[in-house]
């Protein structure tokens, strides 16, 4: 395959993805491609399927229809493809999900040592690099409960980065934070975006979307309703549902 074609192949591709919870149709024929370095903001009302969608990408949820391909690997139920995808894709959760019994440093070194077989010294060097980058290197020896929410979320971002993923999924990373801590996490994410990380962010932070997104994707009732570059998306939303949603969330900002 010529180099140019490889470069253009999407890093993440969702093709006709469908998902049900019992009788409930959570995702309906979702198609999406994310190229290397692209930043996507996924928004939509609660229950619209946006979190479900990104959780399918690293197989925290299973799809029943269509296919998901990450860096050339198509996800199946086999552990091999799941492992391969999870190595390339990091995730940050709304509730941080740091391991309470491990220090921030240990949180960051666990997976590189156990999954990649990296030595402790190398894992710690990598961890220091990313903890410095999210500006909490001075908290490395503390336990998660000793950190503020914003610091915990930055630690969680560093932990994901320590696996050196090709893409990062953010599942409402600022929704559980006190208002004064939202900015420090968003600034970290903006920094990451500037450095060229491929990102899919589920968030209601429309300022963030304007600032870093290449595309904003709007979902409702399990479907992608519309998508576009942020200026266009916010200036001239095509669908009534998008307009209603933007009206509701922007009224508060």
């Amino acid at each position, binding site marked *: 395959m010529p180099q140019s074609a490889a470069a253009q192949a999407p890093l993440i591709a969702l093709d006709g993805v469908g998902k049900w919870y019992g009788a409930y149709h959570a995702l309906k024929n979702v198609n999406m491609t994310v190229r290397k370095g692209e930043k996507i903001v996924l928004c939509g009302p609660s229950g619209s399927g946006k979190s479900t969608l990104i959780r399918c990408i690293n197989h925290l949820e299973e799809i029943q229809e269509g296919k998901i391909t990450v860096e050339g690997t198509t996800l199946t139920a086999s552990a091999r493809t799941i492992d391969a995808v999870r190595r390339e894709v990091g995730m940050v959760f709304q509730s941080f999900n740091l391991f309470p019994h491990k220090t921030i440093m240990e949180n960051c070194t666990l997976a590189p040592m156990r*999954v990649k077989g990296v030595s402790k010294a190398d894992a710690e060097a990598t961890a220091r690099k990313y903890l410095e980058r999210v500006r909490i290197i001075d908290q490395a020896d503390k336990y998660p*409960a000793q950190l503020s929410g914003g610091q915990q979320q930055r630690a969680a971002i560093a*932990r994901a980065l320590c696996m050196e993923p090709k893409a990062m999924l953010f599942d409402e990373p600022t929704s559980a934070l006190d208002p004064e801590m939202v900015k420090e996490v968003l600034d970290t994410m903006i920094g990451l975006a500037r450095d060229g990380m491929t990102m899919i962010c589920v968030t209601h932070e429309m300022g963030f979307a304007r600032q870093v997104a290449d595309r904003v994707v709007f979902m409702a009732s399990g479907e992608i309703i519309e998508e576009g570059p942020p200026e266009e998306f916010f200036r001239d939303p095509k669908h009534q549902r998008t307009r209603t949603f933007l009206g509701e969330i922007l009224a508060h900002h």
Partner: protein
Amino acid sequence: MSYNLDFSVVVDRLPELLVACLATIGLAIAGMALATVIGVLGVLARRSRFKLLRGLVIGFVEAIRNTPFLVQIFFIFFALPQIGVRLNPTATAIIALALNGGAYAIEIIRGGVDSIPKGQVEAGKALGLHPAQIFRHIILKPALRAVYPSLTSQFIMLTLTTSVCTSIAAYELTSVAQKIEADTFRSFEVYFSITLLYLIISSLMMGVFALISRVSFSYPVK
């Protein structure tokens, strides 16, 4: 009522009683260690994909928790030899204590594992860790911490239950006390003394449990 207390018989045979205390502590520690292993493995089996394995664990736990310990130890000591399994009293005592304590430990530890938020497992999965690694490195310690008070009080029970092993003439504190009582007829003095000794053993155990907790489970939580 004129009964003259005479603790001199106890004092005379104190060395014997103290060695018997060590035997009791030994049985208890062996029982607790094996019960913990059975507890953790049992929880894993209870959560496995294999229905048969899950059923076996449930059957084991129910069988143990709904029958008397005395019957269990008699079964191992007197019934098993009929089918060719012959064990000495000490081995029988340790196995009986381990199986009995293990059944309770399975139920207790299972509660701890169930109390771990789903997000912890998801974070482990998202980082690429496998289920066994997630259990070992992410779930186990917080789960044990969550149930540590219940688990240790069960282990104090196990320690005191070693006295039932007298029934198969295992060497431990109560059986030695019985022997001294039979030699001296000083029932009050002998049983009063070992009551105190059991109290001391339990207190020591609780001290050790507290120490283990401080060393292993001292991480802060909100």
